[in-house]
C-alpha cells in the first residue's frame, strides 16, 4: 500500500464518519438545521456541487487526452482521472440530492423532465455521462482501446455540454444581474478544466507508484504547461467579465462585487481565490522546478482549493443582493435574510461527502487491479516522445 494511502485512509474514514452525523441530521431533522433560506436559497452544498461536477469534467479532459487523442504520456494520469471523474461527479450529485426539499421525488427528474429547463436537461446529461464513465472503467479493466476511444469522445461532448451548462444555469437568470452573463458558461467550462486537471495532477503526485522515469517527467511537463495555460485563460476570462461589468456600474452588480472584495467573505476572494488558487500556484508552476511531481502536485492541490472557493464566491454574492432594497426588512425572519454562513450540519455533510469520495478513490486505486498496475497497457503511439521533447 502506498504511504499516502496508509496515512489518508484513517483520516478520510474519520472525516466520512463525522460527515455521516451531518447526513443523519439532514435525514432525521429535514432542513431545520440548515442555514440557508428563501432569499439565499442555495448555500455551501450548491457551490460545492457545481465545483465537484466541474472537477469531474476537468479530470475527464486528462482521460480524453490519453484515450481519445492517444497521448501515451498521460496513460498513468488517465488511469487515475477516470475514477476521479466518476467519484467527484457522484459527490456533487449526492450533495445536490441532499439539498432537495423533497428528496424522495428525485426520480421525477426523469419521469417529468421539463424540456424548457436547463436543470432538467442536465440531469439526463449527468446520467449518460456517469454511464460513460462506468463503461470506461469496464473497458479499462477489459483492455478495450477502441471502446475507450469511442467513449472518450462521447464523454468529451458531454463534458463540454454540462461544463458550459452549469454556467448557463446561472447565466440565464435575468433576476440575478451578478450571474446574468453570456460569458459565464465559458468561464465555468474552463474553470472546470483547470480544477479537474489540478486534482489529477495532485493525485499523480500523492499516489505515485511508478519510478521517476522519462515518462513521469514528460507527464509532469505536460500537466504543468496545461495548468499554466488554463490558469492564464481563466485569468483572461474573469478579467473580461469583471472589468466590463464593473465599468458598466450597474448597482446590483457593483454591489455584488463589493461584497466579493470587501464583504464578510473577503477572505474567500483574497486568500482563497487569489493567494491560494492563483498567485502561489502560478509561482510554483512558473519556477524551474514546476514540473517536478511534488511541486506540480502542490500547485494542483492549491488550485483545486482556490477554485472551490471561487464557486462559493459566485453563488453567495449573486444571492446576497435582494430583489428590492428593503425586502429583507419587510417581513423579518432568519430564513428571509441575505446574510448566510453554513451551519454545522452543512459543513459536516460537505466534509463527509468529499471525504467519502476521496476515500473511495484511494481504496479503488489500491484494490482494483487495472488501476493499481501502473505498467498496464496504454493506447497511443508517439505521444510520449513528442511531448517529452
Amino acid at each position, binding site marked *: 500500500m502506498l504511504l499516502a494511502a496508509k496515512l489518508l485512509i484513517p483520516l478520510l474514514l474519520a472525516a466520512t464518519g463525522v460527515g455521516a452525523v451531518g447526513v443523519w441530521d439532514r435525514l432525521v431533522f429535514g432542513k431545520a438545521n440548515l442555514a440557508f433560506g428563501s432569499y439565499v436559497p442555495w448555500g455551501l452544498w450548491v457551490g460545492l456541487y457545481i465545483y465537484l461536477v466541474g472537477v469531474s469534467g476537468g479530470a475527464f479532459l486528462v482521460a480524453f487526452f490519453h484515450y481519445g487523442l492517444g497521448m501515451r504520456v498521460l496513460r498513468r494520469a488517465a488511469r487515475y482521472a477516470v475514477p476521479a471523474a466518476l467519484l467527484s461527479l457522484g459527490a456533487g450529485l449526492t450533495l445536490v440530492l441532499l439539498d432537495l*426539499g*423533497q428528496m424522495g421525488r428525485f426520480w421525477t427528474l426523469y419521469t*417529468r423532465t421539463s424540456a424548457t429547463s436547463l436543470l432538467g436537461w442536465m440531469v439526463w446529461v449527468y446520467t449518460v455521462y456517469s454511464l460513460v464513465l462506468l463503461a470506461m472503467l469496464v473497458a479499462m479493466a477489459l483492455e478495450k482501446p477502441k471502446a475507450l476511444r469511442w467513449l472518450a469522445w462521447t464523454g468529451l461532448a458531454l463534458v463540454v455540454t454540462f461544463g458550459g451548462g452549469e454556467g448557463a444555469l446561472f447565466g440565464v*437568470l435575468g433576476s440575478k444581474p451578478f450571474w446574468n452573463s453570456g460569458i459565464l458558461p465559458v468561464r465555468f467550462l474552463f474553470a472546470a478544466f483547470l480544477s479537474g486537471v489540478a486534482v489529477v495532477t495532485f493525485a499523480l503526485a500523492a499516489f505515485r507508484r511508478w519510478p521517476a522515469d522519462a515518462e513521469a517527467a514528460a507527464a509532469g511537463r505536460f500537466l504543468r504547461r496545461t495548468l499554466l495555460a488554463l490558469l492564464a485563460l481563466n485569468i483572461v476570462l474573469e478579467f473580461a467579465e469583471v472589468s466590463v461589468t464593473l465599468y458598466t456600474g450597474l448597482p446590483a452588480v457593483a454591489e455584488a462585487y463589493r461584497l466579493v472584495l470587501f464583504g464578510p467573505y473577503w477572505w474567500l476572494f483574497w486568500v482563497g481565490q487569489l493567494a491560494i488558487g492563483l498567485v502561489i500556484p502560478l509561482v510554483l508552476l512558473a519556477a524551474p522546478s514546476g514540473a517536478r511531481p511534488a511541486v506540480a502536485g502542490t500547485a494542483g492541490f492549491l488550485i483545486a482549493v482556490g477554485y472551490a472557493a471561487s464557486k462559493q464566491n459566485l453563488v453567495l454574492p449573486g444571492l446576497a443582493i435582494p430583489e*428590492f432594497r428593503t425586502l429583507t*426588512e*419587510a417581513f423579518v*425572519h432568519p430564513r428571509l435574510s441575505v446574510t448566510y454562513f453554513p451551519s454545522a450540519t452543512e459543513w459536516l455533510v460537505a466534509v463527509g461527502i468529499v471525504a467519502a469520495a476521496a476515500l473511495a478513490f484511494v481504496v479503488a486505486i489500491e484494490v482494483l487491479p487495472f488501476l493499481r498496475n501502473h505498467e498496464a497497457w496504454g493506447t497511443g503511439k508517439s505521444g510520449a516522445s513528442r511531448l517529452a521533447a
Partner: protein
Amino acid sequence: MAAHTDRSDGQRPGVSRRAFLGTAALAAAGAVSGPVAEAAAPASAPAALPAMPEDGPQNILLRMQADVQRAMAKPIGERRWAMAIDLRRCIGCSACTIACVAENKLPPGVVYRPVLEEEVGEYPHVSRRFLPRPCMQCENPPCVPVCPVKATYARPDGIVEVDYTACIGCRYCITACPYGARTADFGEFYTDGTPQRQAYETQPSHEYGRTWARDGKASPSGNARKCHFCVHRLEAGMLPACVTTCVGYATFFGDMNDPESLVHELAGKPNVTRLKEELGTKPRVFYLT
C-alpha cells in the same frame, strides 16, 4: 397625499359626491359649534340622516366581488385575473400580509405578500412609502421554464400555480423570480423548541382548492411557495384575503378580460406602472402611483 380626482376609488359615475361633501361639511360645522347646537336642539331629538340615493355609493368590495362572480361564470380560459394596488392609499399597516398568513396558514419564514417600506427625501421633506408585493402572476413568468419537473405553470386564467405534489424543492424557481416573490417552506413551526406544537399550526390550508395539512415533512413543506391570488377563495366567489382586509381600499382585484370590472378600469389609468417592466415579464399586478 394628493387628493383623488380620478375616481380610482372605484365609485361609479353618478355617485352624489356633492351630497356627501355637504353632509360632511354639516357634520364638521356641528362638531365645531357643538355647544351652540346642543343649546338650540332638544337632546332627545333624533338626528336627521340624509336619504340614501337609490344609485348611491356602492362599496367597492361589493363591486369587485360582483366582478369576481361574473368572471367565475365564464370558462377559465376567458378570465385574466389581475390586481391593482394604489400606492397613494397604502398606509403600510401590513393587514394584507397578516391576512394572507392567516388565510394560507403560512409557517415561519414563508411570506406571500410583504409590504416594502422605504423612507424618501431629506429632512425636512421626508416621507415613507409602502409597496405591497404579491406574486406578479407574470404573463411571461421566469419561474416557469426553469422548473425541471414542470411543477409550476401558468393556468389558463393567468395564475402561476405550484403543484405541491410535484415540486422537488430544488428552489431554482426562487432564484429565477426577479421579484423575490417565492419562498421556501422549510417545514418549521412557530412553536418549534417549545413543549407542545399548537393546534393553529396544524390547521390545514386550502391552497389551490385542496386541503394541505402540514406535518413538517409532507408537502407543502419542502416546496417552493407563493401567492396565488387566493385561487381557492375565487372559486368560492370571494375576493383574495389581502383585498378584503385592506383598510385603505388600496388593493383592487378582478378580471382584465371584463371591461366592466374595476381592475380593468384602473389598469387604463395614466398613472399605472408595473415593477421591473424592462425584464419583459409582463406582471399582472399594476401599481397606481
